């Protein structure tokens, strides 16, 4: 009863859950142009994920896995569906998610093993795989309610059916580590813990060692996605777009959302996107306002590009951005390989590369 009254009061006064507020990009998240000014490494047809074995870059592109040695690309694997997640196994071979509904090992000692359901529930939107040092796989199944491509539908339905899974390729066993997540997208083994990105809740959670969903990073101003290890400890965390007050407002307006989802083409929803500025029918992306007689840019971001460097304890050390006026948006994966950070801008179907030492020299010294 008291909770109900409080909810009503909050809705009336715009407080608590009804406060339409968004954290700011400041401190280590202060915007820059590193991703926007990064060199374009490759432009592909349908890139989905990146991985590395420490010497080469691997890219999931459509149904193929490409390996880059320098600029030279060779196809190392081909599957019968679209690859939605990719990981390199420590003892040889690859693990891929196919169409979000199956996890399969390709090559190596366990070639051909696959899983299409875990804990009695079918995979629906497998979107990230991470291989631990012992060969076990951590997999995020974004949503049980929506398939891989309909992530925006899941957000607009306030989905909370994501889960993180552990798969043992050697023994064939699989288990659910956590479920009921607000879109699980990206996972990694961090010491004895498992870290999982809960995108719609804008945070990274830790499981294991008595932790059951302890926040590692919370209240991010963006929607986090995949995690990858950094060379000198710590992690790379990507975010495929940032939060805005407008979208937060829409998320609180059920009737509006339902009608928008029913009547409007998803490309034109007031919702986050991996790319924007493609048509005038989209919600406003770039604009200006006049202050004291001077035109000033004002840009409610619909799409954005962001990679964050996390310390081993989860503290954000620095970040690389492609801002609202940029193009390298929709960053869904980043890996560090031989001193270079490769980031996948899915919105532009482009891989960009940045020398890590150069970034750290300019941002940290």
């Amino acid at each position, binding site marked *: 009863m008291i909770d109900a009254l409080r909810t009503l009061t909050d809705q009336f006064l715009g*407080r608590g859950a009804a406060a339409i*507020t*968004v954290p700011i990009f400041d*401190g280590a998240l202060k915007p820059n142009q590193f991703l926007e000014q990064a060199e374009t490494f490759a432009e592909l047809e349908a890139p989905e994920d990146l991985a590395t074995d420490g010497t080469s870059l691997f890219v999931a592109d459509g149904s193929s896995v490409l390996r880059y040695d320098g600029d030279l690309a060779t196809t190392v694997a081909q599957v019968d569906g679209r690859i939605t997640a990719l990981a390199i196994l420590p003892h040889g071979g690859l693990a891929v998610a196919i169409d979000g509904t199956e996890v399969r090992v390709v090559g190596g000692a366990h070639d051909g093993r696959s899983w299409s359901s875990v804990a009695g529930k079918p995979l629906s939107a497998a979107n990230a795989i991470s291989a631990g040092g012992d060969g076990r796989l951590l997999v995020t199944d974004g949503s049980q309610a929506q398939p891989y491509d309909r992530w925006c539908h899941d957000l607009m339905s306030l989905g909370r059916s994501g889960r993180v899974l552990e798969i043992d390729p050697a023994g064939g066993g699989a288990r659910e580590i956590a479920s009921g997540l607000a879109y699980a997208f990206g996972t990694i083994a961090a010491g004895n813990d498992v870290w999982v990105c809960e995108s719609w809740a804008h945070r990274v959670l830790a499981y294991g060692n008595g932790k059951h969903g302890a926040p590692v990073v919370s209240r991010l101003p963006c929607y986090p996605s995949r995690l990858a290890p950094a060379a000198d400890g710590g992690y790379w965390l990507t975010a495929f777009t940032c939060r805005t007050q407008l979208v937060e407002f829409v998320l609180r307006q059920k009737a509006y959302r339902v009608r928008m989802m029913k009547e409007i083409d998803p490309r034109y929803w007031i919702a986050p996107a991996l790319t924007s500025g493609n048509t005038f029918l989209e919600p406003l992306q770039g604009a200006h306002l006049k202050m004291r007689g001077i035109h000033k840019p004002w840009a409610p971001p619909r799409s954005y590009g962001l990679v964050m460097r996390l310390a081993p304890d989860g503290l954000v050390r620095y970040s690389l951005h492609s801002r609202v006026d940029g193009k390298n948006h929709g960053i869904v994966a980043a890996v560090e390989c031989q001193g270079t950070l490769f980031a996948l801008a899915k919105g532009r179907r482009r891989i960009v590369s940045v020398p890590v030492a150069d970034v750290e020299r300019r941002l*940290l010294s």
Partner: protein
Amino acid sequence: MTTPIVELRKATKKYAGVPAIEEVDFALLPGEIHTLVGENGAGKSTLTKVMAGVVALTSGQMLIEGREVRPETPVQALHLGIAMVFQETSLVPTMTVAQNLFLGQERFYNRLRGIYIAAQQFLQTLQFDVDPAATVSLLGAAKKQMVEIARAVLHKATVIIFDEPTASLTPEEKKYFFDLVVNLKARGVSVIFISHALEEALLISDRITVMRDGKVVVTDRKENFDRARIVQAMVGRDLSQTLYGQRKTTVRPAGKRVLSVENLRMAAMVKNNSLSVFAGQITGVFGLVGSGRTETFKVVAGVIKRDIMYGGEVLLHDKPVRYLVPAPAVRDGIVYVTEDRKLEGFFETKSIADNIYLGFLAKVRGKRKLVSKREASDVGERLIKRLNIRAISKDVKAIELSGGNQQKLVIAKSLVQEPEVIIFDEPTRGVDVNAITEIHQLINRLADEGKAVVVISSYLPEVMALSDRILVCRMGKVVEEFSALEATEEKIMYAAIH
């Protein structure tokens, strides 16, 4: 050459030995609009207060049309033809416009109807659309300004001084106000106009004077200025021989985010403001008067309240908090060290130890059923030693301390509460050089200990010397963030005024 209507020669005004203006030469010509610009504390207000008789010169001369005068009260200045319109209007809110206009000119018998008719006629001559029977408290900011101006003109003022008149006006009201100023000029009235908005200065002035650190840097015709020249004149000081001579070469890395402010709103002062404060760092906050920096942090600390509806969020360790008074904020580890120590900082007739102990009691409220004199003495002694408060004994009354030691007392009163977030608002205002050094060392030590420290300061060199990161506020929100390594005075000032 035209004789200036008001002239100051070698004008110096000192407060407790510290010069607010020093050896200033200033001339206001008949019928001109003269704008004063400069940082907070540059001496603009003091200069105009001298002319308006609010404060008296320590040394130097003031001349009106070549005749030396020394107005000692605003009434005397008004008789000399100088009126000042303050930022906060000096009207009586419960009285009508007409009553306010004729306040101080009452006769033995006052016929109210007569006053209204006279006021109506007078306001019409000025083309001011204000109802003389309206109660002042019900008027908007612009109309209150009109009444203030009308009152000045009624008193036959030939010089009208406006202190930040446009800060509380809407764009439409501003336009109307500028028309009024031009109208006044046409009537032969000289206008001094203090403003932080350079666009305004460049729009309506005939001449502009830039002040810095209590001195006039340059006076020139408006045509000879552009924004870059004004900003350069406002900040271009030589610091090599001062406390702030050394530039910062390293910054502390940010720790955990301790405090977040998201889309905070507080009346017209704070508009959708967002910022974060991190552990182990000094976050400097710079902004000109009216930029909303103090108000933002007063809301954080529970000194003032945010808007009731859609007032935004304040988060401590990612958990929303809403303090209606400072006590719960103190218990949660947020302290605000006030900029006005005499009014809000301490009880001046209480001893140092008692003042510090009062701070301690605010933290442990409810856990102390009885006040222990011994504990008060011990806590006082510990903090006096830690902050090096110089006094004959801990029983000396706060009022008997020097400005620097009073400031240390205010800080001690906050530190005894073992805070996690410490907000210093103008920590070295009115403090001597030695105490400034000690306070700076203390602030640095707190950040080194891992506390989240916020320093709000109007003095740019201080912000740059202390801060690891600098937030610049303008018009109620943070508009720019700089690392201390990339910040320059020009960059910060540019962000603060554009």
